[in-house]
Structures are given as structure tokens and as C-alpha cells.
């Protein structure tokens, strides 16, 4: 936009009033906290003002339905496990605590605030994860983390005081926290997807009786990985794992919520099973992974086993061909039941 020019009788007024309007307004606007996804930085350990309230519903459901097996994870879990099929295959009632885009800190909170806090004790708690996610804290989804938390989380606060994060990460987290506190409106970031504007603009007629979300899913499927040119270097899991020796691994674990998860399970008498899912395979072989990741998974298995939990790595173990996969490492909706059946078989075989 061009600059505004013109005759000026009071240049200072003409400069300052617009500047005040533009730059003060965002600080004054406050979002409706009931709708806003809370934004907070990793590591502060505190529930920010305006965070969504603690939702005790999943814990109450556990007490009511008394599942034998509980599964915790994200979309990698709910596209893989169908509770009804699991019950048919294993003869044990199952319940999924799965929310998209959640990671280890969120799973820790589910374990602590829903499973361990429930009056009902399930037989087994499965935690589905990918690669190094169990020790990766920066992937935490703040919204989901705080939605499960009703008070200051001691485990988070303890981590915040360990030298786990680089100066750069601490600086970024501080800046993000300051901006979030000064501009409450940032909590509405992502709350207005432009797609919703298009949905309203096109009107229900365009979708031909379909839900816009379902239509968008179909559109997304056109851009499925299988339809993309593979010009880029083939995906190799673990490129970002900088774990060269056991000392690196110990440091990584010390900076994660994994020990806290194991403590919670131990204190609550829960049998914890970590399930490392198989990423999207190549045509007729298991997915590639770095030597670093292979070593890391070995140390991870030793660590959790020593603490009374179990770990199963499905890479190359489960019979799940490429045709069962949809986007990325997600299992196709039509294959979820079949995958559950195969996982049950693998589970029986391994343990």
C-alpha cells in the first residue's frame, strides 16, 4: 500500500493517532478463552491464564467402562487400532485415548491424570509412538497438554530447570512466552482456518450434501504421498537423532518425561507397553532408518525393560504392506480393523 500523503495541519497528530490505533489495538483485544486454543511455551511448567479447563471425562469413562486394555497415542494410534476388533481378537475390552498431534508430554498427562487417577486399573496400557518421540519434548502440543492439566505440573517444572535446552531454544521459548502474554490474541492463532471461509463462501450446494470436512478429506487424498513425485531424498527415519553413545541417550532421557511416565505406571501398578509403530514401508521392504536410530531404540528398550515396562518395535515385525497405508505413516481407514487383527497376532506372538 502506498503511503498516505496530503496537507497536514497537525503532523504529529496525524502520525501518532494512526500508530496508536494500529499498534495498541491488538494488545487490547481479548479472545473468548472458552474457544481459544491456549498457546504456551514448553518448559514453563505453569498453566497459562485462559487455558482450557481440565477435562476429567476420559478418566470418568475409564471408571465406568472398565476397559482391560487402554491405548494412548495420536493419529498413528487411532488409524491403527479399532477397539471392537481388538475385543473380538483378544477377548479384552479396549479403550482408546487418542488425540491427533499429541506427543510424549500429552501422553504423560493422560497416563497420570486419566489412567492412574482413575479408580479402575486396566491390565495393560499401550503407548503408541514413532521413532524417538518418547524422549522428544519439543514436539509437545501445548493445547492438548494443558487441556489435560488442572494445576502446575511438577514434572514439567522440573524439566524446565534442567539444562536440557540450548540457549537458542530457551531464548525462543522466552520470546514466545512474552509475546503470548502481551498479545492474548495470539491464542486465536489457527482458530480461523481460511478453508472455513471458503466453505461458507461456496455454500452447502457445492458440497452436494456432504460435510465440508469429508470433502476436504477427499481432496487431501488427491495429494496423498503415493501421488507425489519422489524427487526428494527418500525418507530415512532418525536423521535428526544425535545419539552417538549411551551417555547421549542418558542425557536425552533425563530431559524427557519418559522417567516420569515409568514412575507413574510403577506407583499406580500399571503394566506399560510402548509400541514403536512401523513407518510407511518402501515397496517390498521395511522403512529405512539410520544406524543412530537403531542404536537409540536398543538403548530405549533396555531402559524401559529395566524399569518394569516393555517395548515392542513393529518395524519389520508386523505384516503391514504398503497397500494398508494412506497418508504418510497413517493406516488407511478401510484397513484399520485388519491392522488391529494383525497387531493382536503380533502381540500374542511377541509376548
Amino acid at each position, binding site marked *: 500500500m502506498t*503511503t498516505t500523503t*496530503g496537507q497536514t495541519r497537525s503532523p504529529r497528530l*496525524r*502520525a501518532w493517532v494512526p500508530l496508536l490505533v*494500529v*499498534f495498541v489495538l491488538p494488545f487490547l483485544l481479548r479472545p473468548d478463552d472458552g474457544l481459544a486454543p491456549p498457546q504456551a511455551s514448553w518448559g514453563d511448567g505453569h498453566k497459562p491464564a485462559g487455558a482450557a479447563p481440565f477435562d476429567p471425562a476420559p478418566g470418568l469413562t475409564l471408571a465406568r467402562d472398565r476397559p482391560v486394555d487402554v491405548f494412548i497415542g495420536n493419529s498413528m494410534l487411532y488409524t491403527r487400532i479399532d477397539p471392537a476388533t481388538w475385543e473380538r481378537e483378544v477377548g479384552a475390552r479396549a479403550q482408546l485415548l487418542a488425540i491427533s498431534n499429541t506427543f510424549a508430554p500429552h501422553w504423560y498427562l493422560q497416563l497420570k491424570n486419566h489412567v492412574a487417577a482413575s479408580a479402575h486399573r486396566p491390565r495393560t496400557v499401550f503407548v503408541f509412538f514413532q521413532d524417538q518421540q518418547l524422549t522428544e519434548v519439543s514436539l509437545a502440543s501445548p493445547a492438548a497438554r494443558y487441556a489435560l492439566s488442572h494445576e502446575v505440573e511438577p514434572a514439567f517444572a522440573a524439566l524446565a530447570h534442567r539444562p536440557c535446552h540450548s540457549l537458542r531454544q530457551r531464548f525462543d521459548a522466552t520470546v514466545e512466552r512474552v509475546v503470548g502474554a502481551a*498479545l492474548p*490474541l495470539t491464542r486465536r492463532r489457527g482458530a480461523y482456518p481460511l478453508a472455513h471461509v471458503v466453505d461458507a463462501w461456496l455454500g452447502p450446494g457445492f458440497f452436494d450434501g456432504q460435510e465440508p470436512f469429508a470433502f476436504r478429506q477427499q481432496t487431501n487424498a488427491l495429494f496423498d504421498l503415493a501421488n507425489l513425485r519422489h524427487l526428494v531424498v527418500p525418507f530415512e527415519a532418525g536423521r535428526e537423532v544425535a545419539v552417538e553413545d549411551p551417555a547421549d541417550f542418558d542425557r536425552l532421557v533425563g530431559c524427557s518425561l519418559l522417567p516420569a511416565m515409568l514412575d507413574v505406571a510403577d506407583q499406580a501398578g500399571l503394566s506399560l507397553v510402548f509400541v514403536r509403530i512401523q513407518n510407511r514401508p518402501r515397496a517390498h521392504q521395511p522403512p529405512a532408518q539410520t544406524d543412530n536410530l537403531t542404536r537409540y531404540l536398543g538403548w530405549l528398550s533396555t531402559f524401559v525393560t529395566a524399569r518394569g515396562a516393555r517395548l515392542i518395535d513393529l518395524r519389520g515385525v508386523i505384516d503391514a504392506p504398503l497397500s494398508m497405508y494412506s497418508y504418510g505413516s497413517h493406516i488407511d481407514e478401510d484397513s484399520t480393523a485388519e491392522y488391529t487383527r494383525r497387531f493382536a497376532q503380533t502381540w500374542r506372538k511377541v509376548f
Partner: protein
Amino acid sequence: MAFQSFDFLIFFALVWALYWRLPRRGQNALLLGASVVFYGWVHPWFVLLLATSALTDFVCAQRIEDDPVHRRRWLGLSLVVNLGMLGVFKYFGFFVDNVAVLLEAAGLPSFTRTFSVVLPVGISFYTFQTISYTVDVYRQTLRARRDLLDYAVYVSFFPQLVAGPIERADRLLPQIERDRRLSPEQARDGLFLMVWGFFKKLVVADNLAVTVEKVFLLEAPTFSILWVGVFAFGMQIYADFSGYTDIARGAARLLGIDLVENFRHPYLSRSPAEFWRRWHITLSEWFRDYVYIPLGGSRVGGARSFANVIVVFGLSGLWHGASWNFLLWGLYWAALLLLHRAWVRVVPDTLRGGGALWPLQVGVMFVLAHVGWLLFRQTDVGMIGTYLTLSPTSQTPLEGRAALYLLGLVAVTASPLAVDSVRAAVDERWPRWGSPDLRLALHTVAMAACLLGIIVLAAPSRVAFIYFQF
């Protein structure tokens, strides 16, 4: 350092706070120091290249002035150093790869390149800027500078260092050499320009980048999905590059320096020549003044004039990147320009509709520019061939509706650009509409909306500025 990072905002606030407390020499020393930090933020060794280019031209320009007998040699040295740097860092890999392909095609023993050269960000911009300085001194339209500090600030001025505008010495250097003041209105305009630039980058360009990336990765896109992707890219690259320029101009204005305009609503153009008077204006003018006119321009007439256009646009294409698709893109624009020249010569103005058909002319140019963007975006020349043979009719109903939906998404995301262009068209037609106070009030409301938009609508993932790769 990227403009769209908090690092930059904190860095700029610190520089600005200190800057206005210093005398002019102190300001220039601060600008030089800040520019070094800004440029060396990720790769400190980049600063060495910048210093090499700057010092070479500082010395060469003085020698051209002081040693008239050997002035051509000094000019030659400047060109060799600057173009040599460009050649090594930008074109070496391209050259080696193509030699290997040629050897293989000729049945001779070939090789595979086992290394790659990192392209220092902004090298194409600052080498052109320093070349223009030396050439202007050689042409005696500018006197060589003796003050290294002022000159170094001209070459390295951080707001425009990595992606222009490519400033001419006779415009920028005098501003660096004199005392600067900042009026409240300048501060307001500078901040508003930055807000608008950030909005274009973070909300428009980065949100469109998601669609563009996906469409151009499709193995077999349909005709309609491909062209929606091309349309999205046309909007993305404009929002991205002009957004960068606005942030640069706004930041410079807050430092009391006026940078030249680089974009003038290019999608309102009615002819190829007009497009290049509105798009990346400083690059077009650079090629015009330092390549096209020295080659004889249009004065030479006939085939030579045609050849000049082809050479200039071919070079302009290659300036954008060391890849055949960029050369193709440049030649495509040369063809458009030449065809338009012939059209103007053959068809009388009355038959061309005069001014009455401008919406049609704008529409045709919009389409032609986007055909060019297809060549620009797809670096795989084989894929370009595939794209150009797609049939508009071969698609499933779902693919047709998906394309329509994506078109809606792109149109909604890019709509602020359209609003701005309509405003510009109104301003061009009725420059004195409304009172200054009304216009200022509307501008203020628009900027407030932009800032709120940045806060709630900015794309979740940050995308590097497209022109950083050039």
C-alpha cells in the same frame, strides 16, 4: 537473518533505538556493524564475499577516476571479480552438470559431481549493485567515493542487502552521506509499510505456499489443479517478493533512508513491457541501463534489436537461477515482448481498442504472466513438457470440484492483494479522491486489520523468501 523472525524484530528495535542517538558518522558505523551481523547471522563467512565485492569496487572505482589511461582495465577487474564470484557460487554446479551430460551424450567418459557449492544469499543483488557503481564511475556519471565507511554502508545496507531493491549509487549514496531526520509521518509510513509487507509474506504468501508446494509435487496433476497451482504461485511470489520489499523499504524509512519502489501492481499491466516496468523494477532498469542500452537497445533496429531483447531476457532468466527452466522463462518473456512490439506496429491503435479494452488487456497479460510462472516454478523441464500437454477435459468429477475448491481457497487467501490493486487502480484513475484525512483513516483501518491478520492468520510454518535463493 530473516525478516520474518523474532530475531530480526529484536535486532531492528535495538539498532533503531541506538541509531537516532548517534551523529551521522556514528549512525553509519552502526549500520555497517548491523549489516555485518545481519548478513553473517547464519553463515559468518558470507561476509567475506560481501567484503571482497565491496572492496574490489571501492578500489577499482577510485583507480578508474585516478588512472584514466588504464580505466578499462580497472573496470574489467571489477567485472571479473564480481561476475567471477557469481559464476563460481551460482553457476559452477550448473555448468559442471551440463558438461557431464554433454560428455555422456557424446559417448565420452563422463563423471558425477560429488560436491555442491553453497549459494551465498543475496550475492546476485549486491554484485549487481556494486557493478552499477563502478560502471557509473567509468561512465563519469558518478564520482568515485573516497570514504570507505559511507561506501560500505551503501553496499551492505541490511534492509535491502539480500533481496533488493537493487539501489543505484547516485540515489542511495547521497542519502548515506548526509544527515538524516525522521519525522513522525515518516515513522508512521515506515511502520505501516512493514506491517503491510509482513502481512503479505506471513498471511498471503506463506499460506499459499502450502497449496503451491503440493500441486507442483503431484506426479500427474489434472489440467485444472495444475493451473490453480500456477495461479497460487503467481500470487505467492508477488506477495512474497513485494512483501520483502515493503519490509525493507519500511525499515529503511525508519532509519531515515528512502529506498526505491520495486513493484507497482504488476498484475494491472496491459502489455509485457509494462509488466517489466511494474515487476522487480530495479532489476529491469539494471538490465536496461547496463546490458540492453550498451548493446544498442532498440536504436540498432531490425534483427539486432530483436537479438538484444533475447540476450537481455535470457540473461535475466539465468540471473534468477542456474537452471534451464529460468532460461526458458526469460526467453518466453523475450518472445512476448517481441510479439507485442510486432502487434503494436501492425495493428492500428483504433483496432486494438485504445483505452476502452484495458480490462481485457489486463486479463490477457495476467494469463500470459502466469504461463511464465509455470516455467519459473517447475525446475524439471521434462515436467514442464508434461504440463503443457495436459488436457482440460480429462479429470474425474472429484478432481474438478477439488480444483474449484482450491481456487476458492487461493482466491480468498490472495484477496487482500486484489483489494490493494483495486485501490491502486482507483488512485491511478482518480488521484485526488477523498480528503487526505479520509484516506489516512482508511489506511489506518486497513493496517490495523493487517496486523490483526498477522496475529491470527499467519501460516503455521515459516517459508524462506523465494528470492533469497537467487
